[in-house]
């Protein structure tokens, strides 16, 4: 009987952690990009960023390099695929889903930064409810009713599981993890803006 419980448990875990191609996905997202949110899909230098909105190191990275990366994106100089992971807890799921809701209004970068700027001091504190996330979206410049109902309905919650399943296959074991043209960023460069700029400059991105 215990064996039965174990097998059911394993079956459940395996099935619920697989990618589901039938879930609602944000625009700019595709399976080919590991279901990440892609900005500037045709740019030559390809960046992949795995992060969790509740992760303190990710907040530090955003504080140091976020403005610079956003400038590069807005100038069309780099292609970035954002993979918001959700392993820290349920609020990571809500935050990632809320960020996905802002893609259609073109406010994803603003929402991305706003989330880190309002990251609670403690993980899983209960602060990030859908109501709180709607307020953050508004401060990021997206108070549209489409985004609000998207957040309230949890439209992209299931999409976050696809990101997790993809991150598992890509062997991402900490956040933030950034790849530039397939090469993982040096661990010391996340909080060293000069070094990060040099990495991009070496690829012709200034």
């Amino acid at each position: 009987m215990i064996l039965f419980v174990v097998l059911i448990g394993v079956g459940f875990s395996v099935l619920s952690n697989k990618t589901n191609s039938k879930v609602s996905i944000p625009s700019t997202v595709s399976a080919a990009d590991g279901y990440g949110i892609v900005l500037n899909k045709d740019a030559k230098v390809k960046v992949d960023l795995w992060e969790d909105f509740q992760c303190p190191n990710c907040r530090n990275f955003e504080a140091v390099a976020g403005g610079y990366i956003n400038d590069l994106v807005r100038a069309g100089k780099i292609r970035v695929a954002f993979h918001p992971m959700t392993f820290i807890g349920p609020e990571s799921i809500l935050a990632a889903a809320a960020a996905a809701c802002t893609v259609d209004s073109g406010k994803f970068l603003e929402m991305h930064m706003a989330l880190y700027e309002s990251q609670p001091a403690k993980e899983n504190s209960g602060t990030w409810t859908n109501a709180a996330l709607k307020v953050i979206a508004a401060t990021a410049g997206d108070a549209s009713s489409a985004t609000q109902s998207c957040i309230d309905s949890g439209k992209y919650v299931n999409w976050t599981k696809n990101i997790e399943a993809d991150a598992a296959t890509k062997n991402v074991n900490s956040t933030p993890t950034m790849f530039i043209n397939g090469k993982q960023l040096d661990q010391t460069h996340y909080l060293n803006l000069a070094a990060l700029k040099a990495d991009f400059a070496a690829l012709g991105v200034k």
Partner: protein
Amino acid sequence: MKVQPWATLLARLVLGVVLLLAGYLKAQTPSKAQMAVRAYRLLPVSIANLFGLVLPWLEIGAGILLIVGIAVRYSSLFGGALMLLFVGAISQAWARGLSIDCGCFGGGGEVAAGHTKYLQEILRDLGLTATAIFLYLYPHGKFGIDKAKLEGAHLE
């Protein structure tokens, strides 16, 4: 008063509760559990991911068996083997200079250098290995549902 039956009960509860709790916490955050196994860099990624999903349930199963006192020899053998496996895995991570959290009670993955707790984790798991060995040698104790008692009940 004979001490051994009570010692067996205590050992069953210690090992059983630890395994049940460890499995339960991991099962609650499956993607984190998978990350924990991958971070050891021992198994190929897809196998590591599968192991991360399967392990928690094996721990839960073994934990329940030990707490209730069924198949104590098998479950203590399994639990002890698991602990030795963990000791080996943590030791190799330490030796290779990896910076990871063992992920033993949920959590896991890479951590900042200097934030590792390898010695504590290894000592704890060696203690649990010893507990498992004791249980394997003395599986029959208080409040256990073991064959000897069941057969005895039938004969009466």
